[in-house]
C-alpha cells in the first residue's frame, strides 16, 4: 500500500487530498502510478511534479518501497 497525496489544482481535480492504493507490480515509476491511477486531471504529465517520501523526484523515479507519493503542479511560493 502507498499513500498518494495531491496538492493545489491537482487535489481539486482528483477530488480528494489523499488516497491509499495498492498498485500491481508493473507500476514501477511515478509516471506509471499516475497512468494507473487514471484520474482525468493527471492526463497531461508535463504539468505535474512529484515527491516520493517528501523528496522531489522526476516522474521517471521508482516508487518501490515508498510510503508516500505526492503529485502536484509546479510550485509557486515566495
Amino acid at each position: 500500500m502507498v499513500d498518494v497525496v495531491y496538492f493545489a489544482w491537482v487535489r481539486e481535480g482528483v477530488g480528494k487530498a489523499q488516497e491509499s492504493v495498492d498498485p500491481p507490480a508493473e507500476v514501477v515509476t511515478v509516471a506509471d502510478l499516475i497512468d494507473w491511477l487514471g484520474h482525468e486531471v493527471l492526463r497531461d504529465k508535463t504539468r505535474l511534479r512529484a515527491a516520493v517520501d517528501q523528496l522531489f523526484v522526476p516522474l521517471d523515479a521508482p516508487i518501490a518501497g515508498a510510503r508516500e507519493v505526492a503529485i502536484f503542479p509546479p510550485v509557486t511560493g515566495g
Partner: protein
Amino acid sequence: MIRIRVSDAPLNVAAETVALDGLGGGAVATFTGLVRSDDGVDELLLEHYPGATEAALEKLAWEAVERWTLVGAIVVHRVGAMKPGEPIVFVAACAAHRAPALEACSFLIDRLKTDAPFWKREVRGGEARWVGQRSSDRDAADKWAKPN
C-alpha cells in the same frame, strides 16, 4: 544559526530579524515578499505540503550557510489566507561581510520560489485562480546552479 518557520500566523519581520542579533556578523541582508495590491487581488491563499515544506526550506538554508559561510540564515513563510500588503515570505542572511550576505539573501529567495512546495491561489472579485509558475522564476533559480 538556522531558523525555519511555516505558519498561518501573520509574519512579523521585525520580530524575526531579532534572531540575528548578537551573532557577531557585520552584515545582514533581508528580503520580504508582500502581497501586491496593484493587480486587483483581494486575497491570497497559500497551500503547502506540511513536512516536505520544512525539509525543503531547511535544506535550502543549510546550502546557503555552507556556500557563503553564513553565521545565520532565516526562512519564514506564511501559509493560509492573507490580504494585500501583508508579508508572505521573509528570508535573511547574516555574514561577516556584505557581499556574501547579499548574495545568500538573493539565493534564498530565488531558490525558494522553485524548491519549496507552496502553491498560491489569488482571489479577485470572489473568484479564486491558481497562480502558474513563471519561467523567469526558473531562470532566477537556475542561475545559482554551481558549475560541475
